[in-house]
């Protein structure tokens, strides 16, 4: 490469890129979760890599194919793979196979305290402390999303036709169904646990107010919503799927019913593919189809900051370390940027 071109590329880098490290893994980054001062990333080559500022990532060969799902569990991560294995992995590379489903994929995983959950096909499997055999919950179609509420008393399971919310009482799970035609994917409880929201296989998200099952249809997106995140105290549900980060207000009695969302972080002709809240702030990171990432406050009058320039590959995951000091951005080509969020004082 000639020196001028190098200089030009250097000058186009963002501050975050200049002080960060870039790792080219060569397989799509599928999921990222934070465990203390480390960020674990699952990849399309079956590896889980633990990233930490100042050192090379530790690589764990976990699955044969793709790491389809990942969550944190105590000091470990739980992963589900397309090799049918449900694993518990520690950052020093210790792998504990919780269950092997053979040729069935482990599509979703979830955890709460000492409870480990995964789904394979139409069934959800729940392992509680000191029990070898899982409890099973059956559904009418393949499970596409799992989420605990913040107390771990309710488990939302998304599927075709809506969501089943299971409630734990005296060690028994009872089901309550929330119905909306269509196929539902990723699911989340609002932080106050009054609402559940799903991303659909169509260009919309759907929510229900839990106490009266009132529907909230949030439409108007040009593409599917692959990612959402709760931001701030209001809170806002910020979603991908549009040329902006679309932020739905969930305050008041009615939430977003009859209200317009705020739109921030305009990506021009690029579509937002991943969104991640900055903990404790009313601000969100938004990754786009071209690999760029913007940081924006939930305020239409404020200008967003470009923190990662275009890489040519869609942003597939963003994670922030638990102390808010580090950010990790991964894309579908397997390029990882790990950088400190704040300039050194």
């Amino acid at each position, binding site marked *: 490469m000639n020196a001028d071109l190098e200089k030009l590329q250097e000058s186009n880098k963002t501050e975050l890129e200049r002080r960060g490290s870039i790792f080219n893994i060569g397989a799509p980054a599928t999921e990222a979760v934070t465990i203390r001062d480390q960020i674990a990333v699952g990849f399309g*080559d079956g590896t889980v890599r633990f990233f930490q500022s100042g050192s090379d990532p530790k690589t764990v060969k976990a699955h044969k194919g793709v790491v389809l799902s990942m969550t944190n569990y105590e000091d470990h991560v739980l992963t589900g793979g397309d090799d049918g294995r449900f694993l518990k992995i520690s950052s020093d590379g210790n792998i504990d196979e919780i269950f092997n489903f053979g040729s069935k994929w482990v599509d979703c995983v979830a955890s709460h305290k000492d409870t480990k959950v995964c789904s394979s096909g139409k069934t959800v499997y729940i392992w509680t402390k000191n029990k070898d055999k899982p409890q099973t919950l059956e559904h009418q179609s393949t499970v596409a999303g799992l989420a605990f509420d913040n107390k771990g008393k309710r488990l939302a399971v998304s599927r075709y036709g809506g969501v089943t919310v299971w409630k734990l009482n005296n060690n028994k799970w009872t089901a309550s169904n929330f119905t909306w035609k269509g196929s539902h994917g990723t699911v989340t409880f609002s932080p106050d646990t009054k609402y559940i929201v799903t991303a659909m296989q169509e260009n919309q998200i759907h929510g229900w107010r839990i106490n009266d099952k009132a529907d909230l249809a949030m439409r108007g997106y040009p593409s599917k919503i692959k990612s959402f995140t709760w931001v701030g105290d209001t809170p806002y549900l910020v979603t991908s799927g549009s040329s902006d980060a679309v932020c739905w207000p969930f305050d008041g009695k009615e939430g977003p019913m009859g209200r317009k969302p705020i739109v921030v972080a305009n990506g021009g002709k690029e579509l937002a593919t991943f969104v991640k809240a900055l903990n404790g702030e009313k601000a969100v990171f938004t990754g786009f189809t071209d690999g760029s990432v913007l940081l924006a406050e939930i305020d239409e009058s404020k200008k967003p900051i470009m923190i990662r320039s275009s890489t040519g590959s869609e942003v597939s995951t963003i994670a922030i370390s638990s102390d808010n000091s580090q950010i990790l951005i991964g894309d579908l080509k397997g390029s990882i940027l790990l950088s400190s969020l704040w300039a050194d004082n």
Partner: protein
Amino acid sequence: MENTSQVPVTVLTGFLGAGKTTLLNRILTEQHGRKYAVIVNEFGEQGIDNDLVVDADEEVFEMNNGCICCTVRGDLIRILSGLMKRADKLDAIIVETTGLADPAPVAQTFFVDQDVADRTKLDAIVTVADAVHLSSQLVDHHEAEEQIAFADVILLNKVELVEDNDIVKVNDRIRKINPFAKIIKTTRCDAPLDEIVGLNAFSLDRVLDIEPDFLESDHDHEHDDDVTSLSFVSDTPLDMDKFQDWFGNLLRTKGQDILRSKGILNFKGEEERYVFQGVHMLMDASPMGPWPKGKDRSSRVVFIGRDLDNMNLKEGFENCKSA
């Protein structure tokens, strides 16, 4: 738009016992130097074990968009999206469907779902037919008829068990339902794999391969719900507005009964050929370069479906001719 990074997907249909598993085992075990993933159904025949075999549930979902034809395979959307995250690039994906499945939702998934359409493309629908039993299956099961009707390639398998004149009969029966599929006669599905996988049969320029010889409008049948085909040729240029009105309305109102449609069109005042190809109500259409020099500029359309006689297709097509 042709995107080279799209992985081609072959849909494999056929009744239980026709030989689908034999073909899948060949695809997975032969030394072809390619990487194929195979999505099998939960009711499939046993005997396939390979890292690149994925179990699917054949969950047929209705889309919310109000189009009654828009049933898609929800599980397929999920599985294809998972396969696209693999580090190693797949050369092709093969989707097996159960013998009794309607192939339409599988095909429609590639038209309707944007993520699927961005990363993969429907390559061809391949139907394995049992030369011994096809004739009786066509009488007893409308699914068998649909699988023949939808096919781009038909493997007429087990021909070694059938007398020559019976092969001619079953071949003619297939042709009545589907005049444009390529028929390959096989023993133990022994057709070369490159005639089954990687065909680009759904590419619009393949529409240009429609053989005029197949386009004979004669057809006779016993039941009104039989699947048949009709085709029309016109040497008079068509009026684009009239055609769009007629064809759009036809697919909207009769799309449920029209299983496949294909055509090459010569519009008045247009230098380029227009081609289209459809599955039920959904279709792709685009200009496809100028007409070859020295060849007739004739428009040709083919319909495969049920109850075609009651759609006034001939009259409708004739009315599209420019004055």
